[in-house]
């Protein structure tokens, strides 16, 4: 009984996040050709604080990433790889009610495109291949999965807003010293905006078409 309650509660917590994502209209025909300009390396810097939630929320005031992006075909299609991503720094670590939170990512992660709306220039997809070890005090756990996201060409903002079920807490290795607050039944949430800049300083554009 208690277990069911817990699962339901976590889902309820994520509902608000999920709602925002489903609002955008999907295009009628899925894109299979993805054109990224410019291609090559990029950097991503958080715009506003990043919030990771594993039952208890954690705030990161700094987070940045870098990698490469390229045009590609298919659907879903990996339009970029995240070759490095950090959450917090030594000087300004991520924090939670349990204290400083250290997040060490196992890269590469991916940026996967699924749906493009030409009228708005918005690509829907997700950040994939997510894997990170999160430590708060003696509590340590591993998060895996993906995080739903949108990319807007006009602003260059990758808005990460995962929904319940996107991310999971790994059972191998299982959480250590976390108690019932973080278990393998916990559904972590990853939310935050990243401003993307190509190596030439411009905002990259992702355009999906179906020739």
């Amino acid at each position, binding site marked *: 009984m208690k277990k069911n309650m817990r699962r339901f509660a976590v889902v309820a917590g994520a509902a608000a996040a999920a709602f925002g994502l489903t609002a955008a209209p999907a295009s009628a025909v899925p894109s299979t050709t993805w054109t990224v300009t410019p291609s090559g390396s990029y950097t991503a810097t958080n715009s506003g604080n*990043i919030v990771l939630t594993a*039952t208890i929320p954690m705030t990161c005031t700094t987070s940045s990433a870098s990698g490469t992006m390229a045009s590609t075909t298919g659907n879903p299609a990996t339009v970029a790889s995240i070759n490095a991503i950090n959450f917090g720094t030594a000087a300004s670590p991520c924090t939670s009610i349990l204290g400083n939170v250290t997040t060490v990512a196992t890269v590469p992660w991916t940026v996967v495109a699924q749906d493009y709306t030409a009228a708005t220039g918005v690509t829907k997809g997700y950040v994939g291949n997510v894997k990170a070890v999160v430590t708060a005090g003696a509590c340590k756990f591993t998060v895996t999965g993906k995080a739903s996201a949108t990319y807007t060409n006009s602003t260059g903002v990758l808005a990460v807003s995962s929904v319940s079920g996107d991310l999971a807490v790994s059972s191998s290795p299982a959480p250590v010293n976390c108690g019932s607050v973080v278990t393998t039944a916990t559904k972590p949430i990853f939310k935050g905006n990243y401003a993307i800049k190509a190596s030439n300083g411009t905002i990259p554009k992702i355009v999906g078409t179906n020739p």
Partner: protein
Amino acid sequence: MRSHRAAVPRSPRIRARSASLTACVVLAALVPTAASATGAQEVDAELPYVCALPSGELPVTVRVSADFPGRATPGEAFSPDGVTTTVELPAEAVADLTALDATTARAATRLGVGVTQNEAAATATWRGTAEQVALPESGPLTLTTTGDVPAVTGRSDGDLAFTAGALAVDLALGAADGSPAGPGSLTVDCSLAEDAPGEGLLATVPLGQDAADPDGTPAPPGSSPGTPGASPGPQDEPGDRRRERAPEIAEGAPGGAAADRDAPPCLYDDEHPSTSASLNAYVTGYTNVKKLKGASLLPLSCVLIEQGPTDIDFFPDFSGGYLSQHSEGTLRHQGRAQTPPFEATFLTFGFTPTKATMVLEQTGPMTMDASGETSFVTLATSLETRVRIPLVLRVTALEVNGTPLAIGANCRTQRPLHSPEPDPAKFPGDHVLLTGKGTHQPPDQPVGYLLSSGGPLTGEVTIPAFTGCGAGGENLDRLLTASVSGPGNYIKQTQGQTCAVQVFNPAECTEDLQPLKIPVPER
């Protein structure tokens, strides 16, 4: 000239009076330790600094004022008195702070002070704190901090030169609604401008009796200095006991900088091995002694913590849950459950320096129980941690005017210090209760006491009657009890960031797995 001695002359009458003076000493206000001197020099130095603010480097005027003794005696510790650091932030710097939506700031300063004698040098950290001030909407702002500074001892004749060096200004920023603004805190690092007069020289204190001017006008350094003996405080690891040339900075006073590692060891070892849930941390702070109308520094102490799991008990409507966590810990100093020895010096009757050496001994388990709640809807989360620890206060030495007084080997409080306990059925027995509260409203950062990251813990304690004090037929119990013991003594302890020793984090742990963060005591 030669009659000017650093030490206050001891008279038989003072000795006779010492028994009653003793009573006023324990846990008394920390004022400049040890020898005072004749012909004090009042220093008020205006120094140009360059400070790194968020928008870039800006010139900042820093004033340092202090009273130095006109002369001191080799081997005897002295402290500059009345130390005040004033930082005059220009309008641009204030704009940097208001740009973070801050409306108030509370400043703490850490001024590195070089103490040199001939070519020997040591560095002291002069710490100061200020009351919260409102930020002007425009224009400059003056921050004035005060604090006690470490005692200094030279062992031989010669001049001790005090020179201002790097300055760090720690700013706690507050928004209009009282919540933390921007990142909550900001450290502004400042360095002495290249054109600073006298390269930052604050004062020169001649040691011994053979120098010329008893008023101690700045003069080139003389002969070689030495090591002190004063306040063991957190640093009772003298390290090298050989005659050292550098002047000794006693850290009986506030904490010590991380860079200097002016901190007692804080390690797990074979006797107390670590587990995957082991944390270590430093704590330090002040306790008021109501009867003496003063406050005493509680020394930088090591705490070893076994952090318990955090559990959640969901609300009936699944909109959130209650959080709880039970952890246990112990003080640890040289293998014993106690603080390092520490000193408090009190000007008994306002003029007689009387010094007590004390230690707080843990007589039972230390527990940390946290409870709070989190909302899945708003993400608002709060946690209150109650730290309980039974502590006996032991007095190990007393000095009046530098004259040791026989206190005996077993002078201590009859019972552990104790606080009002809201849940005596669950937590029986005498113990100190300190409470820390943390709240977190994403996307902002948490504020307050955070279990593994530290913060302020406060409480109120009753100091029980003393027993076993006195020797040679002189019973000092009643005097100590009458002067010191009693309820309502406010305590504020600051815990630093813990190091999770089996989850090594270079931002939180030293390479040998001690806590990297050394907290600064706050009043």
